[in-house]
């Protein structure tokens, strides 16, 4: 399965991926609307900055899926390809997945007061196709590739 990988040398730390991620998951048809009208828009990707170091992190869709195995409700699941998604209707916001994810990639949904969590779903539930963070990265710092054996 294709996953998002980070090319740290190319990351400028512009944080544009965070904006495009929030837009892609906002349900709005323009980025202006997403930020002007929809106060719920929030990214599932996070750019870490430390001095000259910059890189974007989101769910690795890792082979081990500790978040799925730890989920107390069954809200998190993994499909046969390895895509990890969340059914927010079944999430009770216990944060066991936050405790478990070694990459810090489960995002507490502050826009609903932390009642649920959210995460990168590789844009399969929204506009589809290539993840928006990859599509809009201006320097090729995030790529969408198949680098591993399929599970």
């Amino acid at each position, binding site marked *: 399965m294709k*996953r998002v*990988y*980070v*090319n*740290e040398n190319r990351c400028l730390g512009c944080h544009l991926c965070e904006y495009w991620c929030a837009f892609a998951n906002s349900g709005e048809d323009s980025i202006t609307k997403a930020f002007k009208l929809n106060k719920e828009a929030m990214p599932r990707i996070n750019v*870490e*900055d*430390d001095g000259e*170091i910059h*890189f974007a*992190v989101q769910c*690795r869709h*890792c*082979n*081990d899926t500790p978040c799925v*195995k*730890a989920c*107390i*409700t*069954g809200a998190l699941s993994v499909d046969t390809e390895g895509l990890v998604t969340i059914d927010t*209707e*079944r999430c*009770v*916001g*216990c*944060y*066991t*997945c*936050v*405790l*478990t*994810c*070694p*990459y*810090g990639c*489960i995002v*507490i949904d502050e826009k609903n*007061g*932390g009642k649920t969590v959210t995460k990168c779903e590789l844009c399969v539930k929204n506009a589809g196709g290539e993840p928006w963070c990859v599509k809009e990265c201006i320097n090729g710092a995030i790529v969408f590739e198949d*680098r*591993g*054996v399929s599970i």
Partner: protein
Amino acid sequence: MNYVIIGNSAAGIGCVQGIRDKDKTGKITIISDEPYFTYSRPLISYWLKNAVTDENMKYRDRDFYDVNNVNTILGKRAVKIDTAAKKVILDDNSEVPYDKLLVGTGSKPFVPSAPGLDETGYFTFMKYDDAKAIKQAVKPGAKVLIVGAGLIGLKAAEALHEYTENITVIDLADRILSSILDADAASIMQKHIESKGVKFFLGTSVNNFAGKVAHLKNGETCDFDILIMAVGVRPNTELIKEAGGEVNRGIVTEKTQAVKSLTDIYAAGDCTESFDSSVGENKILAILPNAFLQGEIAGKNMSGQEFMYVNAIPQNAIGFFGLHIITAGSYSAEDAYEVADGDNYKKLFINKDKLAGFILMGKYVSKAGIYTSLIKEKIPLSDIDFNLIKDNPGLAAFSRGRRDKKLAEFH
């Protein structure tokens, strides 16, 4: 191959998934004394406060048994394992033969005896049926007394707060949540819960019950309509003990989850002891993720794969009235880093250049898993930028090589 699983919760479901990883055709039978489709035990408090529907109590999708080709025997209790004949005997005297057996019998409430308790009547709070019984009994504004200020008692308090603000919790310990919080964190959480109207009597216990009145050892009295006993739990080890398997406080297993001193019998979940790698000793780690993982490992080994369950640590993620806690590992350490402001609290416990454990509350729970990975992977703190990570859990604190492994490689 004929697999039989006693228990229909996280360990049992993990076992099914572990078996089906490779064995797509073997016969699987789940036996449970509860008559329900697999449901999530930790959700009973959410269900009681009407935050989760019956449908969403289900731990797996509706078609889980069909997709995984699982037979179920629900509403019947396994009363004996006949190891010689390799069969499980149920409470209606029917027999279920097995080639490989998983015991995932969980735990039961521990209710200490107190004069007048049985006459007074009480609820426990572990199962769906417990929550249903309480929901039926509780009337708006009812006076509720909860004995036990641990995870179960306080989750019951939070749920019942939907019905009444008249809730009193008592505990023998001098602080709430004594199994997962230190004194400072417990004090913050106690004040938060008290701000919702819940009253506490700590450092005391019930001397006796007289009708609907509890007389406490500290001289106080407390009257109630609903009494919930939530002092603690005990593992259900009887089946294994009677079958001749090794049992300490919980069932003792190999790292494959095979029960010591028995053949073709495995155990997983709250009924077992786990090796706590954060302190290097066997403990009962009665938490759902542990049960699932043990069950999965058991299932893989039962179906001929070879896997070991290692790296278990105590860990909890839980919230009360909107204030969240995430904790992990051990708090006995030579050094600690602490930050506190308002309801937000962070304490990192450091031992011999390793993170031993942590307590995070409020806004500090974000990205907690980064700290969990430091404990589980036993990463030397001198290998990372600890000054950065102690305030900003993230991958920036790791070496470039380690970070590339995490972010630029498939794993």
